[in-house]
């Protein structure tokens, strides 16, 4: 009974705490509702795909895939190339994906093989692997590009003639996906004004009475994310998905049933890495600039924190967790600095607070998971007693 209660609390405590924090911080920040909704919609479009890419390795029992930054790096390499070749718009994005995919697959296979050698400590290994590959990535981008790997556009290169600049403008593909199907939500009053300014025809206008202000909705991005969710739903129903669930629960049983455990685990990581590659491309088309040496760094940490805030654990995560998490995490992200400034007069506090929360939440999730697992192990030991006792 107490154990059940504990499990329920442990299962939902994290989202609940965040709802409470937000409930205090939103009024403190003084942001308007329409501003918050606009910011949230943008961030959902920007981040959801990256977070969704984490689901499959969790299903396969490999924990939080800290190695997703590998995919992010692959995506960035694709973006650097399309910038160099000057391919813009949707074709540019597609091409970046095409370039990124094989790189992500190779990195994914490498990562999967490493993780198969480090069973039982996948997370810390994939985490360190992220740093290691970051070194290789920096070597490639900072020294090899423009030297061995041809980069023709001098605007991309550092003044010394090789190595890519710190910041690469992605103006060619900035928000192309978000604005592919331009959509605006506003009230009838605002709609009139909007049509007066922009003219009719080029926008999908959603009119909501009582709605204050106007909001742009990245509809195409949402469609892609929706499709991706459908993919995951479908994937769970396939034989491969079933095999991954089996491996996630008990590798040795899966192995004795003839499921190729190591191969399946590699497939899980490859899928995750490739999806993270696409996720990073979607993320960066929204941002519009690529911080060559930093963008990928925090992709992993923020995605993982968001997923955990959504109520996921190291061994269980759903699509709902992703969206609850992305909303709560970014709500806090938006309001924390402002709330901190209004409360203590120091915006910096809010900044640090959200960083603290991101790391703290991961720490707590990991602790809860290990705790629960050790307790379950104990329980499983007990169940081995057998007999009627």
């Amino acid at each position, binding site marked *: 009974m107490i154990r059940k209660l504990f499990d329920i609390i442990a299962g939902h405590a994290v989202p609940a705490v965040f709802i409470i924090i937000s409930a205090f911080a939103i009024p403190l920040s003084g942001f308007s509702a329409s501003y918050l909704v606009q910011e949230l919609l943008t961030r959902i479009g920007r981040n959801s795909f990256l977070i969704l890419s984490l689901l499959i390795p969790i299903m396969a029992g490999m924990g939080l895939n800290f190695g997703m930054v590998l995919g992010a790096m692959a995506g960035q390499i694709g973006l650097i190339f399309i910038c160099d070749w000057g391919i813009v718009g949707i074709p540019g994005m597609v091409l970046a994906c095409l370039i990124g995919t094989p790189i992500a697959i190779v990195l994914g296979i490498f990562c999967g093989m490493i993780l198969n050698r480090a069973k039982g400590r996948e997370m810390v290994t994939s985490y360190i692997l992220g740093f290691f590959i970051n070194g290789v990535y920096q070597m490639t981008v900072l020294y090899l590009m423009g030297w061995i790997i041809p980069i023709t556009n001098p605007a991309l290169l550092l003044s010394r003639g090789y190595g890519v600049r710190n910041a690469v403008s992605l103006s060619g593909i900035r928000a192309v996906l978000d604005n592919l199907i331009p959509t605006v939500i506003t009230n009838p009053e605002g709609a009139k004004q909007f049509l007066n300014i922009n003219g009719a025809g080029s926008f999908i206008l959603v009119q909501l009475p009582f709605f204050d202000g106007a909001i742009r909705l990245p509809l195409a991005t949402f469609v892609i994310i929706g499709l991706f969710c459908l993919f995951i739903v479908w994937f769970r129903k396939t034989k491969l998905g079933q095999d991954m669930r089996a491996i996630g629960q008990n590798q040795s*049983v899966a192995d004795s049933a003839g499921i190729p455990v190591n191969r399946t685990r590699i497939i899980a990581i490859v899928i995750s890495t490739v999806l993270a590659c696409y996720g990073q491309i979607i993320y960066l088309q929204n941002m519009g600039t690529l911080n060559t040496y930093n963008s990928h760094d925090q992709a992993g940490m923020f995605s993982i924190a968001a997923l955990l805030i959504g109520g996921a654990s190291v061994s269980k995560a759903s699509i709902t967790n992703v969206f609850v998490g992305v909303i709560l995490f970014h709500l806090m992200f938006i309001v924390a600095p402002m709330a901190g400034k209004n409360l203590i007069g120091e915006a910096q506090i809010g900044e640090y607070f959200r960083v603290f929360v991101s790391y703290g939440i991961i720490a707590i999730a990991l602790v809860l998971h290990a705790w629960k697992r050790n307790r379950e192990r104990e329980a499983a030991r007990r169940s081995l007693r057998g007999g009627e006792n």
Partner: protein
Amino acid sequence: MPDSINTPLLRLENIGKEYYGNRVLSEISFEINSGEIIGLVGENGAGKSTLLNILFGMPVINSTGGHEGNLYLDGKKVNFNSPNQALAAGIGMVHQEFSLIPGFTATENILLNREVLNGSLMSYVFSDRVSTLDRDAMRQRASAAISTLGVHISPDMLINEMPVGYKQFIEIAREIDRKNTRLLFLDEPTAVLTEQEAEILLIALKKLAKSGIAIVFISHRLSEVKELCDRILVLRDGKLITDESAENLTTRQIATLMVGRESLRKEEPVEIPENPVEEVNVDETLGVAPAGDDVETKMLKKKKKKKPALRVEHLWVDMPGETVRDVSFEVQKGEIFGIGGLAGHGKLGIPNGIMGLYPAGGKVKLFGKKLALNKPRAALNRKMAFVSEDRRGVGLLLDEPLDWNITFTAMQTQGRFLFGIPFIFQMRNELAMANETKKFIEALEIKCTGPKQKAGELSGGNQQKVCLAKAFVLRPDILLICEPTRGIDIGAKTLVLDTLKQYNKENGTTIIVTSSELEELRSVCDRVAIVDEGKIAGILPASRPAEEFGMLMMGEKMRAASAATE
């Protein structure tokens, strides 16, 4: 297969196996026909599991140099290199440990890796693994397999919400669902079942056999074996002793065949009564025994008048796989007391529980004073020493040198091999450690390069000697030893047992030996207790004939025998 009427389903021809020069199976030949139920019985270490491993193509066989002899399936020679090959050939196996995924439903487990798939275009492009599962068809197949067994279990029930008995049925249902299964091995399937469940299972197995599936039933519950099987095979010391129709054997005879050695040969011509419990006259048996034994028994009786060295009352121990439910016994000072019984029945739980290594309850008195349970330190402080059955897991520091292994416990609990000021600053006395270790290396003939060699680099027998040395260093009043000869070669075996006897004689140390090998217990101990299903089935003087112990082990009641020792 038209000619299957004449050729047996499976034929074994001179199957044998050696592990590192240690012979575990020799010249096993028998046949199994379709629709036949065969009972395979034998003591622990008789070679049952090795035989199963060979038949099922377990990698452990191949990696240790394969096996001797030939296997014929439908008259064709086969050789399985992996369990998957055996499965493909139609051999199913239900292991003693469950091989189920806890968070999956019965259906998902029964059809694990054999799911019914919806065909799709994707599966042509990639592989079958991207097809979706046809859950309805799966459920139907699972319920069909479950109902064949004559039980009612919802196919949507999660495994981790099932009682243990259900899990066993799901395991068997999985093998039945395999369309090509023609030969089914069941390793102790009734061990975790209640009586009613076991009955249902036996009926279901008979039904299965009628449909043409051959079944090999491995169990220590001899009455079940006798009731269910057509033929009974008895393995002993790696040899096939008996291959006889079940009708011609009584449970008592089976038990005798399993354990009996020299004593059996002596008594073989004697008609063994069908129901021994009431009829065995203890005094008579004692009379038959040689005079030396008689003297020993008298001595025992003398010892008994003193306060017992160890008194155990209603002990329970929660040791996984070796649960002790309710055990009471007394050990006299200076006695060598044996604890025997089949694996999994709790004999190992008793010493582990007394030493505080697993959660335990009940009352344990040491020389009349109560011993705190669940605290290894308390047991060690009361001058008890323990040699674990899990040598590599509990008994040794494999990555540390021998002197650490031998002196560590004494250092930590008795403050020896240290110099400095107690409680403030005490350093290891490496010299004293090495000297003590050298002493034992010599005395026990431990083959090593010196006190600084890592324990992990020694052979099994020498490791066991290190474990003994570790216990001797403690200068114990009571020494508890589990499986003293498991996994070591014959030469080392004798030395270890002789050392124990000698140590007992020289120091008057009370020794409690726990072993699966009955002969070993009988040769070393004064008295032997047999544990069955977590309880003491009986305590007999070691001089009693082996089959009496055998009957106790097989769960046959033997009130008269246990009463005799009182």
